[in-house]
């Protein structure tokens, strides 16, 4: 049994996999893991030297798929990729198609990864820093995010497109990324200082967004299951609107559901709009017309 560690880095894994493939090593004879090997009976063997005699032709599309799937955090993270690679290299292309057992798992991981990238684009919330602090830290916007897969590096360019010359930083429990208005700086291990800034940013201007969120909600259409399906609970604690969710659900269940209006708007004084002079004149002439007997 060959035991390898690629430090969750795709480039390292790819080099290891290429060499294994060249020497015709079966997926059953290799395992990737961290720390002590799971299989106590296995005797660790080293990675063979050199490229090996077998030259496999790998479709470019497969490499892209493997790289995307490699961002998935979970059991058999690297072993599965080698199994797919090995089977396709030996002529079985169904291993990379969604209709097959192995391919189905590969595509499930790809889907989870791209979903998590989408979650980053959707649910990151930046806090604008006050001017003086922005000058000191050389940062305009700062965010804390907890992704479930390793997507920060590949998916954060999105914010450079959106935010122009703004300087921003996203810190996570593992990695972090910073943009100075010109270039991205990705850190595999997030500097503790970045985490500190992101977790403790004060936000005096948050109330506008919360007001919007409360008031755009239609209590007559209450459907918390649909919310949970699209906005998984694990994101709530890092969203400013997270604490409002149970509160608004409660209000709707206790009476607000009877119509669409927000509670705080309903408590304010209403005002009818007067008709314009033009509208009144038009109505008057319509009434007169109705009274006049039709000619001829």
């Amino acid at each position, binding site marked *: 049994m060959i035991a390898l560690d690629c430090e969750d880095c795709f480039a390292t894994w790819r080099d290891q996999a290429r060499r294994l493939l060249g020497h015709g090593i079966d997926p059953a004879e290799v395992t990737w893991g961290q720390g002590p090997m799971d299989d106590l009976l296995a005797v660790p063997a080293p990675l063979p030297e050199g490229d090996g005699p077998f030259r496999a032709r790998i479709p470019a599309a497969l490499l892209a798929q493997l790289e995307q799937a490699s961002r998935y955090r979970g059991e058999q993270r690297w072993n599965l990729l080698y199994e797919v690679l090995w089977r396709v290299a030996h002529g079985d292309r169904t291993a990379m198609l*969604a209709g097959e057992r192995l391919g189905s798992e590969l595509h499930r991981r790809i889907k989870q990864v791209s979903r998590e990238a989408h979650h980053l684009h959707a649910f990151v919330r930046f806090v604008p820093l006050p001017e003086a602090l922005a000058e000191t830290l050389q940062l305009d916007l700062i965010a804390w995010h907890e992704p479930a897969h390793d997507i920060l590096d590949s998916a954060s360019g999105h914010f450079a497109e959106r935010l122009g010359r703004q300087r921003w930083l996203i810190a996570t429990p593992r990695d972090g990324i910073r943009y100075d208005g010109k270039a991205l700086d990705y850190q595999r291990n997030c500097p503790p200082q970045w985490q500190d800034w992101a977790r403790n940013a004060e936000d005096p201007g948050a109330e506008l967004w919360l007001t919007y969120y409360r008031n755009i909600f239609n209590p007559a259409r209450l459907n918390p299951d649909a919310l949970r399906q699209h906005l998984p609970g694990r994101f709530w604690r890092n969203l400013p609107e997270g604490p409002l969710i149970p509160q608004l659900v409660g209000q709707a269940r206790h009476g607000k559901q009877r119509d669409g209006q927000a509670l705080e708007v309903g408590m304010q004084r209403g005002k009818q709009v007067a008709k314009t002079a033009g509208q009144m004149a038009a109505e008057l002439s319509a009434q007169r017309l109705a009274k006049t007997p039709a000619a001829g």
Partner: protein
Amino acid sequence: MQLIAKLGILADAAKYDASCASSGAPKRSSRGRDGLGATDGMGICHSYTPDGRCVSLLKVLLTNFCLYDCQYCVNRRSSNVPRARFTPEEVVRLTLDFYRRNCISGLFLSSGIIRSADYTMEQLIRVARLLREEHNFRGYIHLKTIPDADPLLIEEAGRLADRLSVNIELPTDASLKLLAPEKQASTIRQAMGVIYQGQQAVANEPRAPRFTPAGQSTQVIVGADATDDSTLLRNAESLYQGFGLKRVYYSAFSPIPDSPGSVPLAAPPLLREHRLYQADFLLRGYGYKAGELLGEVGNLALDIDPKLAWALANREVFPLDVNRAEPALLARIPGIGLRSVQRLVALRRERRIRYDDLIQLRCVLDKARPFIVTSDYRPAQAELRSGLLRARLREPQAPVQMGLWG
């Protein structure tokens, strides 16, 4: 009035418009440039409210003062709601603040009618112009179009916005006359025509300035009047064909505070709305005709989805051999979606498709089973009568939601 108080009122007033899409805009980027905002065709839902609806755009009214008296509308002239009006600069400030925070991907701005249709339209355009020209905002902008506004104003709006929409609200003249006396079906369609012509004028001109690149949409209210689903779907079909609309939105009528007697107080018909969206998707994505889904009059079934309903009514087409049938026909099998069709076609180039493959593709086999043949499966239920099949496949009906008044 403070900005935050206005925001509360004008967001509350805007929630009855169902659309919040931010997809379909061309590729724009602010990387390394002054200004803010990007689009790449994909929409982003930045949050969800407890009604399960997506928050993608800042959706507000410029003002909820309104001269019209549409009975179904919370902002109608005679409604006793608090009123407010933003300045264009205030809307700009809110849009940019929410955008920087990554709470939204753009703005959806609508308005009550004040002074005149033209004046109101000018105010909406002014906000879009400030965003695009003063602040180099490259995010998504959707502007509501006022039907009676001057065509030149509508064209100007179309050059600034990614999407324009004119709301039909009620699809028949009779209903409009009854519930929205100041509105006319003819001017609504004229405005749609102006937008469509603007799109056609630049359709094959890659260098021409863009005109509503994310298309136009509209909304109809479901359940405020007696209009049936057949009328709604045929109307949608004619809009897709006649004006190249991107989307028709269906908005289940929510009871409004201080409701006039002319509109219902019942809970919004959410399941009916859901079935209409399913049927609408069959028109846009699957090539069904409205006439295939419903006869001249009537409503969609609530207990089964419209694709299953069509399959049950057309049993002679089935069972279909998944290894042979044309992709367009595969897409008509209940429980098999467009994406699964693509994947099945890719897989059957490599080898024969087995029943187990459909499980791996996560097709909804409970629905598909009676309608398919694979290399190792034939439905035992092929002979089963549609009525019995339907009884097996119908979705359990949730108890009708009881309001406190119920």
